[in-house]
């Protein structure tokens, strides 16, 4: 996410909360720091979404 211009901590929080809302999951606080790229988020969703 450091490669995206203008990306900041608020954008990160917004994205993660959006993912929680859209996929009806709760991301554990200790997992947050690892979700720093599209691929890592996709892997996390595959592993943790209710339909997985």
């Amino acid at each position: 996410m450091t490669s995206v211009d203008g990306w900041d901590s608020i954008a990160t929080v917004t994205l993660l909360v959006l993912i929680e809302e859209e996929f009806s999951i709760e991301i554990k606080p200790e997992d947050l720091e690892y979700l720093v790229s599209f691929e890592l988020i996709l892997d996390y969703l595959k592993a943790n979404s209710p339909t997985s």
Partner: protein
Amino acid sequence: MFPYFNFRRRIQGKMKLIEALKIVQKPLPVDAEPLKIFLACGYTPLHLQTFLTAHVQRGHPKRQIIVQTGVYGDLLGNLERLVKIPVDVGVIVLEWSDFDPRLGIRHLGGWEPENLPNILSNARARAAQLQKAIERISDHVPLVICLPTLSLPPISYTSGWQASAFDLQLQECLSALAARVAEVVNIRIVNPKRLDRLSPLPGRWDVKSELLFGFPYSLTHASAVAELLAGLLYPPLPKKGLITDLDDTLWRGILGEVGVQGLSWDLEHHSHVHGLYQQLLRALSVAGILIAVASKNDPALVEEAFKREDLILPKERLFPMETHWGSKSASMSRILRTWNIGSDSVVFVDDSPMELAEVKATYPEAECLLFPKESDQAVYELLERLRDLFGKNALSEEDAIRAESIRHTPSLQESVETFSSSSDRFLEQAEAELVVSFSKDPLDPRALELVNKTNQFNLNGKRFIEGSWRTYLKDPDTFLFMVAYKDKYGPLGKIAVLTGRHQGKTLLVDTWVMSCRAFARRIEYKCLELLFEKFEVEEIVFNFQNTSRNAPLQDFFVEFLDVSHEPGLRLSKDRFVEKCPRLSHKVKELTHD
């Protein structure tokens, strides 16, 4: 269920964060006028800022909504910033931790019983500081305030089902603060009871979000808070008139079947909700709402029924009365003509879905509501809905005299007909008097009310939010001209507003509205004459815009002054003097020295 019987509040349904972001990120025209809001709170505004922007944007799709925020954890500092930054409106969202950090969960300052008196004392001191700051800010900018929405943490030593003295004293401190600032003209407070319906208490607090990010609200709660804030920032225009049926609506019973004495609206006859309905209509009438009757009935019988002294809503509060066997849409047409308002400003209440449909077919913009006579609960919800539709921020002197002045319109019309050979003679005998004012300080709230609710005699249909209105008038080059009118038929109150700028020998008029109640009295001519005299200008340039509703003003320019109604139309003093009819108004200018 009947389609027009819709008791859902003006609530669009919970907005999701993704929807809010889509609204916020939607491209706007490059020349979109900015609407600046400052959001002051003690926590990270995060999603509340997004939802607030989205809810306001949804109501103002052509404006560029800018919601600025302050510094995390510094509510008082943010209030200071609010004074210094030029914005249209300020939004203050309080939480308990703003009164003492130990009333939140991000600080570990101690919840021991011996700390409670100190917390209470801090909270009282902070409430006094907040009150002072809020009152000071409201001198500069309109404010919308949301009181703490989260429950208190388990700080008191009592169990959760017992209200402790500590909890109640904190509530008392908050209520006192809210009651004091609610009296300030420029401040509106979110109704906590309405928030309770939209966002149930158990779903409000997102502890994880508060601990991780400093944002304490769940997404649904943030959306609900933002929606209510947006609704208070830019409330819908209140309706102006209510047209009611009689049988099984204003009272229980069919007059033609049960007779006058068979009608009821009391507990004894299980018809008390009709009494409540009458009580609300009476209160609305006193607050300046026009109330009329449209009933398929025998007029003589109705006359008899209104002689009953136990009626809560007496006949004197109802005008006009359309009681006959003709269609209700025809009744509504006559009522609207008498009131001289549009169908989008009225509510029609009837117990018959068929009658509602018949009126709705003719007047699709009218709010047609079923009187649900079979359900006391549904009637109560109807009363709440009516209060929402007619709710006002404040009552004015004009509210008290509106119905009376319309009631006198027929006698004025009769006089016009009597003197039809000479309008001059009629107006001379009317003993017309204008009371005019050019004062901008103190700013009369009636001016903005008139500008925002007048459709027909309106120069360009432009509406203002309170902050923009104040900002515009703060400019020393602008003037505000207000006109009150009375004649021997009664007072009309403050009925006309003009604003503009004086540039050498030219006067630029930006806003010109006049209440439809004041038509046919040549007040519009007198206004222009007074402006030519006051500012000693050679011409007036009008910021005119054609709207779908301002035909009376278009006619005024074309028919009487013989000038085309185009943007930037000019009226020279010579042309005005040449075309102006004889004016016989007395004029008194108010000064505020």
